[in-house]
């Protein structure tokens, strides 16, 4: 009996995942609960555990992206273990394929297998041999992967790829790193077809992975609209950052947000003197609470007072959400994640601070759980640490609003006709005009300001 | 010698050595019986010496001491009658007329042997003499003898089949099945039990609750008789009766011959084995079937010691020639390894 090991759905919004790394060898006997594969979703990288015990065989390769529920491996229980062949990290090919390849002078590394676990079969070799004349022109070995795709006969071009410099094709083969060779072997990629990395001056592992992902994307979604504007490149870029994984997700989600909502932004200065004094006092007690924590605490309580802001626009109308979970945008090298502080309005400053510290640390360490990022009803994003006062955040769907936190600055203000020094911060609220209008938006900001004026009440 | 003609069993003790039977058979037959016994004795003792000097490979189960049984029975048979044997089988083949050269060559594993070196001591046979093989499986010969008996009856040529087996073999299921089937199908068979008091190294009394194996015959509805297995004439007379019954359509009979093996289960040396006493062996050796028979013939005035000396000398020469023949014979070639697994068939 064999069980399908599927790309898991790790959250409500997860639709697909990319295999980053197998944590075990194919053919390994795994136990229920063992982490076996690291995947990249639109939100995070995560290690996936397996829910049955048995011998795990891969049906997928590193770099491939699958929809949730697609089979990425098989787990055979003991009853059929004799017939399961372990994949020991090399190209699997049947004896018949090897014989035919030797007879036809075809290199197996140029053939893509269609058998179980990607085993190269005899017919794969004969197919490849029959394609060899075109290959000299522009067809590629990975094109065979597209054999079942509608545009199989057309050579696939990489839409956004730079004019690649290919490794010299000679008897010695391409100049490539050992890791690149290993990956190319695993995926059946001809290294000669992979662009040379401009910096390393040889084919790199990333290069191979990018090449395969691009091919797969092109082969399996030939009719899908290009995710980026396909304007011609005005010059040779120094680097192309691929729009996959987290970067791709951010691109898609932000573009969709702007496309689907009626967004506008207002800014309001709020006095932070009371917060500064309160914070200094807490610091003297050994408690470090960030300004953003004050804003989040105030915002969460303001959301209780303004239910329209803690809402979601649905087909049926504006759904007011009872629970308040405020997300906090955390910048990472590769992008942005928004971990969620659950029931933010019920947390005192100290507990809130502890939670935001944990989430930020987990985000930077890559150890965020999927639940840590699910269910946000409102978002807070801060750029004040970079000297920004005001900006126009983009609403994080399916929320209806997001609050930008600016720099804390000292300003001279008139109070009762007297010029006094004051700590001020600018809040930037972007909201979806479909959900509520400008006045309630302003009133919401005022409520936040009110709470920030009496920080002791946030404790 | 008495044997019942119905299913009841006749028993008699071991008190008739060299008894009256000796006057009832011809002098010629007396020398025939004697010659068969001496041939067995000489072959077995030479084989034992060769084994001890490591010139014979494999197991060797010697028949010395039991010569009267095989000789007395086989002297009652024709060449086209059949026998099945045990893994103490050389004596049966010699008694049936086996060729020393081919026997000795087989014991040495040579290509000129009875089995071309593929059978050895435990599978020695001569199909031309109706000897259907020694057998490495205790009790397995009896069902085969039943088959031969069936064939003999089927063809109606008056042949019989004799199954030799030991006391221990009567404890195995195959023997029971064979004896019962022979009786049920009324086959021309004779069951000859060589009761030598030991099943390998365990005394008979420890493995069966009856004193006389022949008691089992009644359970098959088969006439049975006990004879002195050290008295070749007694054995021969019992065999003549049983064989005659079988040939005439009277069905199978059972003969229990009380006898003794002078050497061990296999080999010659006692090896300090404690399963029987030297005194017990000496008692039986005093009843040596050959020497006692010679004494009786001399005492009866039939012949002289000198005549016996001539016979022994003549047969010793045959044995020496057989050893030379065997040692000078080639070993089987590797090419013979897969020959005779199957009979090659012409297209049907």
């Amino acid at each position, binding site marked *: 009996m064999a069980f399908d090991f599927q790309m898991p759905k790790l959250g409500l919004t997860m639709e697909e995942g990319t295999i980053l790394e197998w944590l075990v060898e194919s053919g390994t006997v795994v136990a229920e609960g063992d982490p076996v594969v690291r995947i990249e979703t639109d939100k995070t990288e995560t290690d996936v555990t397996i829910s049955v015990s048995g011998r795990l065989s891969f*049906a997928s390769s590193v770099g491939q992206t699958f929809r949730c529920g697609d*089979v990425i491996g098989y787990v055979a229980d003991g*009853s059929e273990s004799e*017939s399961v*062949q372990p994949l020991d990290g090399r190209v699997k090919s*049947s*004896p*018949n*394929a*090897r*014989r035919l390849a030797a007879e036809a002078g075809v290199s197996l590394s140029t053939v893509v297998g*269609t*058998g*179980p676990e*990607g*085993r190269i*079969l*005899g*017919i794969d070799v004969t197919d490849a041999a029959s394609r060899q004349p075109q290959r000299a022109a522009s067809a590629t070995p990975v094109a065979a*992967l597209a*054999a079942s795709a509608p545009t199989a006969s057309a050579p696939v071009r990489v839409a956004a790829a730079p004019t690649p410099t290919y490794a010299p094709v000679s008897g010695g083969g391409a100049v490539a790193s050992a890791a690149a060779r290993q990956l190319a072997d695993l995926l059946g990629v001809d290294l000669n077809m992979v662009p040379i990395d401009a910096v390393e001056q040889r084919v790199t592992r990333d290069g191979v992975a990018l090449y395969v992902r691009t091919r797969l994307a092109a082969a399996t979604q030939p009719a899908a609209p290009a995710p980026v504007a396909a304007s011609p490149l005005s010059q040779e870029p120094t680097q192309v950052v691929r729009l996959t994984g987290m970067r791709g997700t951010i691109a898609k989600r932000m573009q969709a947000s702007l496309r689907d909502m009626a967004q506008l932004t207002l800014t309001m200065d709020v006095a932070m003197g009371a917060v500064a004094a309160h914070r200094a006092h807490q610091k003297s007690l050994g408690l470090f609470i960030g300004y953003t924590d004050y804003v989040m605490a105030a915002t969460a309580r303001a959301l209780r007072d303004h239910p329209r802001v803690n809402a979601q626009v649905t087909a049926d109308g504006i759904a007011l959400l009872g629970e308040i979970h405020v997300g906090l945008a955390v910048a990472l090298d590769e992008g942005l994640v928004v971990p969620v502080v659950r029931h933010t309005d019920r947390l005192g400053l100290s507990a809130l601070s502890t939670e935001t510290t944990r989430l930020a640390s987990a985000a930077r360490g890559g150890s965020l759980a999927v639940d840590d990022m699910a269910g946000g009803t409102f978002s807070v994003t801060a750029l004040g640490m970079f000297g920004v006062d005001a900006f126009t955040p983009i609403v994080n769907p399916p929320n209806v609003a997001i609050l930008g936190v600016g720099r804390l600055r000292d300003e001279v203000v008139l109070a009762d006709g007297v010029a006094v020094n004051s700590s001020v911060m600018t809040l930037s609220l972007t909201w979806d005009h479909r959900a509520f209008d400008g006045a309630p938006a302003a009133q919401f900001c005022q409520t936040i300001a009110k709470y920030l004026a009496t920080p002791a009440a946030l404790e | 010698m008495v044997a019942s003609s119905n299913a009841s069993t006749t028993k008699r003790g071991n008190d008739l050595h060299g008894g009256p039977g000796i006057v009832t058979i011809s002098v010629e037959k007396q020398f025939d019986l004697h010659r068969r016994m001496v041939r067995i004795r000489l072959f077995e003792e030479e084989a034992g010496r060769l084994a001890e000097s490591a010139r014979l490979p494999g197991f060797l189960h010697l028949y010395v001491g039991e010569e009267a049984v095989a000789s007395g029975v086989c002297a009652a048979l024709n060449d086209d009658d*059949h026998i099945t044997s045990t893994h103490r089988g050389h004596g049966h083949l010699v008694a049936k007329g086996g060729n020393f050269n081919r026997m000795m060559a*087989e014991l040495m594993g040579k290509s000129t*042997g*009875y*089995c*071309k070196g*593929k*059978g050895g001591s435990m*599978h020695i*046979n001569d*199909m031309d003499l109706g000897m*259907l*093989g020694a057998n490495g*499986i205790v009790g*397995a010969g009896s*069902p*085969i003898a*039943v*088959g*031969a008996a*069936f*064939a003999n009856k*089927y*063809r109606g040529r008056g042949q019989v*089949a004799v199954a030799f087996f030991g006391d221990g073999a009567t404890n195995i*299921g*195959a023997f029971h*099945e*064979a004896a*019962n089937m022979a009786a*049920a*199908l009324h086959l021309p068979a004779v069951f000859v039990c060589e009761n030598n008091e030991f099943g390998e190294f365990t005394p008979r009394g420890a493995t069966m609750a009856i004193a006389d194996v022949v008691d089992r015959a009644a359970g098959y509805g088969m006439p049975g008789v006990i004879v002195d297995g050290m008295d070749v004439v007694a054995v021969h007379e019992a065999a003549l009766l049983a064989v005659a019954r079988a040939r005439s359509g009277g069905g199978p009979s059972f003969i229990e011959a009380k006898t003794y093996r002078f050497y061990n289960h296999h080999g010659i040396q006692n090896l300090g084995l404690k399963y029987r006493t030297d005194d017990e062996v000496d008692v039986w050796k005093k009843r040596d079937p050959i020497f006692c028979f010679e004494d009786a013939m001399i005492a009866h005035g039939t012949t002289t010691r000198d005549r016996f000396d001539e016979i022994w000398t003549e047969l010793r020469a045959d044995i020496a020639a057989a050893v030379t023949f065997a040692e000078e014979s080639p070993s089987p070639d590797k090419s013979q390894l897969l*020959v*005779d*697994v*199957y*009979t090659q*068939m012409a297209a*049907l």
Partner: protein
Amino acid sequence: MSDAPVQAPTERKRTYGQAFNDAVRAEMTANPDVFVAGEDIGAFGGVFQTFVGLQETFGVERVVDTPISEQAIVGLGLGAAATGLRPIVDLMFMDFVCVAMDQIVNQVAKMKYMFGGGLKVPLTITTCAGAGLSAAAQHSQSLEALLCHIPGLKVVYPSNAYDMKGLMISCIREDNPTVMIKHKRLLGTSGVIPNDSYAIPLGVAKTVRAGTDVTVVAYGKMLSDTLAAAETLAAEGISCEVIDPRTLQPFDIETVVESVKRTNRAVIVHEAVRFGGLGAEIAAQIQEYAFDYLDAPVGRVAAPFSPVPFSPALEQYWVPDAASIADGIRAAVARPLLAR
């Protein structure tokens, strides 16, 4: 009224069991050395009626009812065969082979070789094998692998009435010991077969269905189930070449290898349990002789490793059927990445 000459039909419809009976009857008529012996085979005609009517024709001397004594039955056959007759002895159920194992393995199979070749053993042992009748663990086994393992024996397992008659005639005429295995559930299946005697040579397989994608080896009852599976798979675009070895020992590996070199895949089907079954031997030989032609591991469809259960509710899962055979073949031809 017709003037057309009335011709005697040259063939007729016979069941597998009748075909066996026809073969025995024909050879007993042709050769007075042939006789049959076994339990209940005389007046009763055998518990599966495969010997019915023979005693009427040939008498009690040639159609012999024996005691329930499997060792002695085989010994009877061996002793008679070694002394010139051509016996057929019947072991009612294949499970009872075990009762007679010493005679079969240590005596019958080896006698010619260990005696130096100076005799023939033209003995045929017949028996009925197979599950599917709720006969439980001691009356349902398929033990052909045990027998095929023994040098000196030939083992024959027909899958249909035509082969039964021709193979049984060959067994009787064979100068070596043969074991003729009949499958209980095939006894009532029928085919139109020639009235005359004909011999099918032992050790020659038959390609029952030509195909291009996978070679499937099946025998006995499994052949018809495999053909049904092949029909199902044909509709899915999978072309099965089905080979019936007919004789299991000696095994016609040449025919199988020639086929595998064309199809590049092989599946072996048998009703016996999988571990140590004949499929293991056939698979081993395929990889020995056609390794460089294989596109997939050689597959096996066989019974699970348990005694045969009694309850129909369980037994149906024990015996391979067309569906499980089709599954096994699909696994061997699977190209999961083709669809991706």
